Structures are given as structure tokens and as C-alpha cells.
């Protein structure tokens, strides 16, 4: 087990190295430079040259790459040209918000997607099935930012049910423990903070969950359909087991295995979605930070984010594999 983990982590190194070369080449191919991004309207040539010198951008490429790598190894992803703070600090600051939002979205997606997929499969061809399948297809086809936008207009501007932006209402100064506002509120007993955070989370989470829900509904449905046709379900039925037992122990337990994998690996689409939803709701996570980085051509942030995702992807992959081996006795990691 441990060897497996170590080996997988070692595999990460060449991947990240390769990625770093690509990113460095990309950075060097970029037009413009950080100097003018810093200076804005007021840049003059002399000032640009001064800044470039200060940043070491006048040195040979290999020296710059060397420094780039050295800094990466030190966990230094550079400094944001927009905020003037280390990219790593910015990520760490905003990471909990995105984690919270993603978790909420995944929880929502699972809570809605699994039962829906299950019953769609059970009543295959029935109205529920048709509704579930078609709404999941439509869910995939609605641009996430448009959905977020609609949700905000309807539930926040028109109905006033939920706040239209942000993570917490001003004036609610929750004590930070984990950085996850909802959890912090619970841990410290500040329940008003918890439900304030929750109410801020709901709309973005729904928007963000739209694609995962669609994926999970269809995965669950296909998987349940497959499992329902399996002999062991018939065996379970032939034993006269109660419906609930058959459903949970024999159908869902098996049917959810592929769904679990997919949930773990929705990272990519979740982060893409987070960039869009967070920026619609001005949710102070990595997503909206990346959005402003895109607008402001904050390349250190973008590069750092790509490295970050690549790492997260590999790690999540690893976690999913480990989790899988715990759930499915047929899979054992060596």
C-alpha cells in the first residue's frame, strides 16, 4: 500500500517537470510582460525597462528557467502581478472557499443525482426516467455562467431568498478554524455564521453542480441498469431479502462503484465551473481569483494554478484509487 502511494507520487515528478517546461516556454512566448500589467495606463518605456530589470527578465532564458524551477521546488509559485502577493499565499487564502463550494456542489450532485439515477433506472422508460435523462442532458447544455446568472436573477434579485454574491454577510465575523465557513460556524457554535455561509453557498453550488448532477444521474442510471441485470441481484431477490436491503446492499453498493470514481475525478470540470460560477457570484475562492487573473493577464497566477491542478488531479486520482480498493475487494493495490 505504502509502496503504491510512493510510486504514484514519484510518477508525479516527471509529469510536473514536463509541465513546467511547457509552461515556461508558454510564458516566454507571451506578448507583453508583467511590467506593463503592473503599470497600466501610466507605463513609459523607461519604467518598463526598469521593472523588467528588477524582475530579472533581462537575463538569459536558461537562467530564468533555472530560477523558475528552483522556485517551484521551494513551493514558490511566484508573485501575483495583480495583488503583489505570493501566488501560494493567495491560493491558500482562497482555497478553502473553493473547496467548500466544490464539496457542497458534489454533495448536492450526489444527493440529487444518485437517487434520481437510481429511480430512473428502476422505472426505465417511465416519466421519471425520461425527465431525469432529458434534464441531465439539458443540464449539460446550459452554459454554466448563464445558469448561475439566471439563478441569481430569479432567487436573489427577484425573490430575495438568497444573497446575490460573496461568502458571508458583512457583520458576521466568523472565527476561522478550518476556513470552511459552514464548518467553522458549527465548530465554534456560531450558528448564525453557519447558516449565513450556507445561504451564500446554495446558489453557486447549484450552478456548479449542474454538470456533476448530469454526469452522476447518467452514470448512476447506466450503472444501476447494469447491476439490476446482474445475477447476484436476482440471487438476493431469490433469498426473499427486504426491498431496502436489496436496494442498498446489493444494487446501490455495486452500482455506485463507478460513480465514486467519477465523483472523485470531476475535479477538472468542477474547477472550470468554479471559475465561471465564482465570478458570477463574486465568491471569494480560487475561481473568481483566476477569473480576475485571466482578465488581468496575471500569468504567474495562471501558471501556478495549472501546476496546482495537475498536482491536485494526480493526488485525487490516487485517493480515488485507494478509496476504490477499500470499497471493492476485487481491486487491491500492490
Amino acid at each position, binding site marked *: 500500500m505504502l509502496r503504491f502511494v510512493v510510486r504514484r507520487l514519484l510518477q508525479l515528478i516527471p509529469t510536473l517537470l514536463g509541465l513546467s517546461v511547457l509552461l515556461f516556454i508558454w510564458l516566454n512566448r507571451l506578448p507583453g510582460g*508583467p511590467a506593463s500589467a503592473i503599470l497600466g495606463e501610466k507605463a*513609459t518605456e523607461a519604467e518598463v525597462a526598469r521593472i523588467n530589470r528588477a524582475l530579472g527578465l533581462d537575463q538569459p532564458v536558461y537562467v530564468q528557467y533555472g530560477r523558475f524551477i528552483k522556485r517551484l521546488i521551494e513551493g514558490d509559485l511566484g508573485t501575483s502581478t495583480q495583488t503583489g502577493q505570493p501566488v501560494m499565499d493567495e491560493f491558500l487564502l482562497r482555497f*478553502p472557499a473553493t473547496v467548500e463550494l466544490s464539496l457542497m456542489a458534489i454533495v448536492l450532485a450526489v444527493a440529487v443525482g444518485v437517487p434520481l439515477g437510481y429511480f430512473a433506472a428502476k422505472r426505465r422508460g417511465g416519466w421519471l426516467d425520461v425527465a431525469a435523462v432529458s434534464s441531465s442532458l439539458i443540464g449539460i447544455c446550459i452554459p454554466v455562467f448563464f445558469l448561475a446568472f439566471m439563478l441569481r436573477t430569479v432567487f436573489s434579485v427577484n425573490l430575495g431568498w*438568497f444573497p*446575490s454574491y460573496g461568502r458571508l454577510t458583512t457583520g458576521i465575523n466568523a472565527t476561522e478554524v478550518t476556513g470552511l465557513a459552514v464548518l467553522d460556524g458549527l465548530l465554534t457554535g456560531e450558528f448564525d455564521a453557519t447558516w449565513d455561509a*450556507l445561504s451564500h453557498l446554495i446558489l453557486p453550488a447549484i450552478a456548479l453542480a449542474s454538470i456533476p448532477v448530469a454526469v452522476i444521474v447518467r452514470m448512476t442510471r447506466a450503472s444501476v441498469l447494469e447491476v439490476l441485470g446482474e445475477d447476484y441481484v436476482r440471487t438476493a431477490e431469490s433469498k426473499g431479502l427486504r426491498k431496502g436491503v436489496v436496494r442498498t446492499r446489493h444494487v446501490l453498493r455495486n452500482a455506485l462503484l463507478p460513480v465514486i470514481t467519477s465523483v472523485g475525478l470531476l475535479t477538472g470540470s468542477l474547477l472550470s465551473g468554479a471559475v465561471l460560477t465564482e465570478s458570477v457570484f*463574486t465568491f*471569494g475562492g480560487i475561481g*473568481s481569483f483566476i477569473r480576475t487573473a485571466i482578465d*488581468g493577464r496575471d500569468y504567474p497566477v495562471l501558471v501556478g494554478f495549472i501546476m496546482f491542478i495537475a498536482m491536485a488531479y494526480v493526488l485525487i486520482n490516487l485517493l480515488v484509487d485507494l478509496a476504490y480498493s477499500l470499497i471493492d475487494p476485487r481491486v487491491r493495490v500492490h
Partner: protein
Amino acid sequence: MRIFKSRVTRAITVAAATALIVTGCSSERDTTEGKGKDGAKDTFVFGGAGDPGSLDPALASDGETFRVTRQAFEALLEHEPGGSELVGGLAEKWDSNDEGTVWTFNLRKGVKFHDGEAFNAEAVCANYDHWFNWTGTYQSSAVSYYWQTIMGGFAKNEDKDAPKANYKSCTAKDENTAVIEVNKASANLPGGFSLQALAIHSPKALKAYEKEEASAKGDAITYPKYSQQAGTVAGTGPYKITKWNKGNKEVQLERFDDYWGKKAGVKNLVFRTIDTEEGRRSALQAGDIDGYDLVSPADVKTLEKAGFQVPTREVFNIFYLGFSQEKNKALQNKDVRAAIAHAIDKDNLVKTQLPEGGVAATQFIPDTVEGYSDKVEKYDYDPAKAKSLLKKAGEEKLKVEFCYPTEVSRPYMPSPGDLFELMKSDLEKIGITVTPKPAKWAPDYIDATEAGGCELHLLGWTGDFNDAYNFIGTWFAEYDKQWGFKDKKVFEAMEEASKEVDHAKRVKLYERANEVVMDYLPGVPVSSSPPAIAFAKDVNPPLVSPLTQENFAEVTFK
């Protein structure tokens, strides 16, 4: 352990359930928010368009930062509320010698900094000396832009390209008299003394600042820690900064009870960042914020209809269509430039694209700035004339590249892409072929225009203080790649005006300079328009300022 666990689980369940119920109920949410013990609303939330860059205004050069710091820091001079006249700030009176090199300030008495320090002449000098003695990264123009603009370089310039220092000294003549000397008269004074970047900090805070160093590492400049969190910075303003919650994108300020002037109307002031126009609008409509700036012109009417307050500012900016004559030689012909000027339907642009209060421009400064001339040549909308001018120049098949920035909203141009579309169709009407060259605002677009890489481009300027040089001086005082022309008449007119120390005479010279510039026509001034600002129904809004220097201490709730 076990007890703890089960209690937590129960708490989670209960909380989640209640939360769902409570959030499902709209009235509940609105009433619990931002209220003090007595039930009156005591928190004013204002939506900004971007996060501030630092809490030390001396390190900043952008409006979003200044909007926040302005509530907590005051400079020697200020602008009159709702106008652009210079009035006393921390200095009650000011004066200069005839050469404009020695500036004497009679300071206000009984002023206290947020950290309890007393305000006096020594504090003023400590600030100016602090800036003058900046070293290292602080000398980067990215950090100390305004200092360098107003006062030139530093005690020890570390970079040979840095401007020569114009600041000479500051002496505390007595407790309440500070004297600031400069080497050379400058058109930027006394206006510069009003800049938020030169606002006065507590000497105790300055000492703390000096322990930290901004650093340039990697690809960008890292701001010092003290400027990134509340606690160290201390000014004299009606509010003190209590918390900067970057994760929640908000800066919290609290009423400073020892403020020398009228105390702030609302106890808590909060600036929250909402990056998009429609996001800010939604937040105001949903009742989540009490006001926001940079209202999209299209939203003004609907907001007003719904009962929101959208007070109109006076104009203090200029939006222009620039020509880079070196990039396209045809533009070196005055007839071609005039043809383009006659082709642009400015009134249509103003009417359909700019906020209420916008006006078509005739020269490169708004009419609110001293030095505005009524006698400049006006190039009225006249497609027929434009066509004939083109014909005269022999450029009937003129082709131009037209740059415009994307994804940006500047106070003088709310949506550049749309303005571009309208101008493009104007130009096409007189037979000019237009190639669109869109680019991201920073750095791509800025780079391109600065380097003279854009034949036609859209840019503008919002004044820092009421002096025409702050506008035209930055463009036409000498050869500039952006414009790519050398015209003796223009340069001389500028030089003459900037050297004049006498205020009234200088204004006259500016008028003349504007006439010369418009005669030469280096570009087409298009419009001056006030960025719209909106407030909730239950707010008594502050006097809106043409320089977007609203003082939120004036705010009260109805």
C-alpha cells in the same frame, strides 16, 4: 471524544435544517443584516469594482484602493465636497513663494491619528521624508508612481532611469507650520498635495512600515505585509480600517470617534468587491449592498425607475480617439485627421453609450478644468465634409487599424467594445476600411498603445486634480511614441504654460495651448462623462465628486 462527536453531529443536523428553513425565508435574511443593538442600520456596504491593492495609499495608483483609503487618510489639501476646487485638508491654509518652490502649510489643530498619535508639522515632514528616502523596490514606479510624478526621484536614486528628485526638504517651522521645499516650480503643485497617495500617516505607523521591505521576487512586486492587513496603517480620517478580509473580498472600517471634524454618519463602513457591473447591480437590487460605483449606463434608467438613487457627478475626465502618426503615415496629413474628426458622431456616442451627464468633448480637457477654451476649433459631425476632406487628401481608400480594449470598463469609457463598434460604423460611412484590433486591457492593449503600435486607439484620462497640465501635459509636452508626432507649436505652447507660476496667467496659457492642440488635432477628443454611482433607497448619499472622491462619512440612513 464520543460525546463531542455526537454533539457535533447533532449540531450539524440541527444547523443544516434550520439554515435551510431560515434561508428559504426572505424577510428573515434582510432584517438580521447590518443592524445594531437598537435595531437601526449601522453598516453601510459599498460595492467596489476591484480589490484594493494595498492599505497604504502611498503605494497605490488606482481608484479602487484610493476609494477605501480616502475614508481613513487625509492629505494636506483636499477638494471641496462635490467639486474640484482645492480646499484645506489637514492644512487649513497654504501658500507658496513667487517661484513656486517653497510651500508653507498652516496645519489644523487638534487632529489625532487613529493610533492615538498627535498630528503636527513633524508628522507631516516624517511622511515626506519617509517617501523621499524610499529605497529598493519602493523606488519602482509600480510602487511609488504618484510620488515620482509629483516629486520626482528619491534621496538616492538606485536606478539611473528614475526621474531626478524635485523634492528638497520639509521643515517643521513650529508645531503647526510645515514648509516643503522643491527644487523647481511644477505644474503639479499645489494640486499634488491633495493626492491620496501623499496622505499623511501616523509617525508611529511610519516607523513600523520602515521595518518592512517591499520586494521584487519572481515576476512581480510583493507589497509589504503592513499594507496587506489592517492594524499597522493609521491616518486621521473619519474612519479607521479594522479588517481586510481578502477571502471575502471586503475591507471593514469603523467610525473614528476622535475625528477632528464631523463624525461619520454610519458606524460601520464596508467596501466589498464585486467584479462585474451586473453583479453589482444585482447585489444592490437584492439589497445586499447599499451603493456601488461604475454603474453601467444602461442600468441607470431601470435603477431610477425602481427607486434607487443615481446622483450625477460633474465630469472630470476625457475620452479620446488617439492617432499614432508613425504607424500610419496617412494620419500625418491634417486633412485625414480632420476627416476622421468630422466623421465621428459624438452626440450619438454620448446619447447611447455614456452615462447621464456625459457631454461631447471639443478639446482634451473637460469643461470643469481651468484652462478650458471656448475658442478651439470644433470638428462637428459632418460626413459629407469628412468625405470631401479625404478626397482632398487623396486618401479615399484609406485603411486603418483600430485598437480597442476588451473586458474593461474605465470611468471615461463604460464599454470600449461598443464605442468601437459605433465609431467603426461612422468611419465606414465615409469610406474608410477599418480593421479591428482588440486586445486585453493590461498589459496587451496598454503596451501596444504606449509603443505607438495602434493607428487608431481609444483611451482617456481622469484628472487627479484641477490642473490642465494633469491632462494635456502628460500627452503633448514632448514627443511621445503613442502619438508619434513632433510639432514645435504644440510643444512650445505646453512648455510656456507649465513654466508660468502665476495661476491666472497659467490658466490663460492653458486655454491657448488647448487651441493650438486642437488646431493641430493629434487625436479626436470624444467625450467627457461622469461615471455613474448608485445608492439604495434608504441611504442619504454623500455629495458625489467629479474626481470620484466621495466622502462616505457623509452617509446616513433615512
